[in-house]
């Protein structure tokens, strides 16, 4: 297990794109410490910010987090990264595979454009988790994102593929959703604004848009299959689907092929 131990709170935002177990396994500790990670003219290197201990394994632990650590695990394609603390924006953005875990909270745009692997945030996530960054066509794009705490607004904005599990989320979950699945314990107002396809499931929710139409409480095989697939990721979320669910169809402003499920009781 390789280790990056944070020396102190970074004086500027740190960009950790390219810092993953595979890349570090090819470097000596001295060479790794020379990798530029700063974002100002001061030219901070990995060694300036972290004490670096490498063993060539496919597992990396970042001891000590900071909301200034951006793009942690953004290049991960295999192996695992665990951050013991918080991270900044774009956690796991564009990640293709492997396992990424944050014990603290994450900034905005977590898992944006991630095509594979599993990203777990034990704390809270900022706005646009699983959402698209500026000029991107899609947000989450095939990976699995699990948020144990509370996500901000616009969770899954322009999400195209994959699954998001979240305990609680803010307003407009699944905005402009292209496809994929979001399962939440509770969400805020106006879920699914502009969604074209995809599935949102929520234990409770704020006000719905006038462009979502109730379509009854159908007994769908799909929901039982979804519950079964979710069991390994979050038993509580799977249990949510075991009762009778009321279905809404939307967003009728767009294609209207999305669906929103919430307990019928």
């Amino acid at each position, binding site marked *: 297990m390789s280790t990056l131990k944070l020396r102190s709170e970074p*004086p*500027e*935002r740190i960009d950790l794109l390219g810092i993953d177990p595979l890349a570090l396994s090819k470097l000596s500790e001295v060479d790794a410490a020379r990798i*530029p990670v*700063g*974002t*100002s*003219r*001061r030219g901070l290197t990995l060694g300036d910010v972290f004490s670096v201990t490498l063993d060539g394994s496919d597992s990396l632990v970042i001891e000590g987090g900071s*909301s*200034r650590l*951006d793009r942690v695990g953004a290049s991960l394609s295999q192996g695992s990264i665990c951050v013991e603390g918080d991270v900044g*924006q774009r956690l796991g953005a564009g990640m293709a595979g492997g396992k990424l875990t944050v014990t603290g909270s994450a900034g*905005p*745009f977590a898992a944006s454009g991630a095509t594979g692997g599993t990203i777990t945030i034990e704390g809270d996530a900022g706005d646009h988790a699983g959402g*698209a960054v*500026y*000029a*991107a*066509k899609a947000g989450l794009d095939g990976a699995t994102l699990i948020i144990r705490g509370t996500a901000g607004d616009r969770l899954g904005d*322009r999400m195209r593929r994959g699954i998001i599990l979240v305990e609680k989320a803010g307003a*407009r979950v699944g*905005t*402009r959703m292209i496809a994929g699945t979001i399962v939440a314990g509770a969400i805020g107002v*106006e879920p699914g*604004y*502009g969604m074209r396809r995809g599935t949102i499931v929520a234990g409770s929710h704020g006000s719905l*848009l*006038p*462009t979502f139409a109730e379509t009854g409480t159908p007994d769908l095989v799909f929901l039982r299959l979804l519950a079964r697939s979710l069991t390994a990721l979050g038993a509580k979320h799977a249990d949510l689907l075991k009762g009778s669910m009321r279905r809404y169809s939307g*967003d*009728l*402003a*767009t294609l*209207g092929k999305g669906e929103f499920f919430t307990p019928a009781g």
Partner: protein
Amino acid sequence: MAAWVKGDAADTDAAVEAAAALLAAARMPVFAGLCADVAAVRAAYRLADRIGASLDPVAGPGLYAELGSLSAGGALTTTAPETLGRADTVLVVGSRPWDGDLVSEIADTKPVRGLSAGDERTVLALGGPRNGTSRHVAYGIGNVGLDVAIGHLRAFVRGHLAGEAAFGDLAQKLASAKFGVVIYDAGEIGEAGVDMLQGLLKDLNEKTRFFALGLADPFQGRSVLQLAAWTTGQAPRVGFGRHLPEHDPWRFDSARQVADGEADAALWLAALPAPRPDWLVQFPAIAIVGEDSADARPDTAEIVITVGVPGSSAGGAVWNERRGVIGYVPASGNAVAATAAGVIAGISQKIAEKGASC
């Protein structure tokens, strides 16, 4: 010309010297405002490149509401002259378009070109102020936001919702247009609203012609946007910390940078009037403001330098909203000695003389 350093009156050279010292010592300076003529904003981008600063125009929220949608899905747009010349149906969304004189001019005239030439023009309003100053048919939106109302209307236009509801009537009027235009302010309806509006226009263009006329912000945002594009190849919120222009609307949001303690010095550029951020007073900052403006005071910032105001006490290239282009405006009165571009160039020269880390 007036200048102040830490509240004390100073000559412009001394203030420029102090500004250079402040910026040269900073790790992550931010340049905000950028409400000025093209030459001044260009000088700001050059100085930012030299010292590794980031830039964020005061027009940012409105600009990015438009750009976010444009960058992801494109846009169907037109201009004010085309609207006046061709449109037989105009939908005014929200309150802000009613602030200027464009809507009343549209309401008082008829199209003179194209398929609608000579027809009566229909002016429709969605969520407007209902002030009755111009001829129009108003459609209320109740308690929902403008972006939700646009989505609701779009559902009727697509035929996914139907009935006698007011939006059904409005959807029919839009669909029967020969040349339609929607006027809106991106800052008022937000990125989601712009995105939904462009979707509505694409739906309408399946059967007729309908375009968007987004109004420019009053803080030179569109001018800054063009300058940033030709200077950096990016939209305005860029940082030069890594010796190349990096675009990141979240990271280089100046208010966030200050609130999160990332920025350690600021340059506020407002040769033309712009709302000064609250943080400026308590922050190591330089304010370059128009002479005789409300912010031309010693307590506006640590260092305050007054400059000529484009179109008033200085000439300069600024945004012309009616024509939708950057155009030169001469000084209407006596031109003052110092321009914002000259002051920023002076700061840059002083920093170069100091040999600051660049």
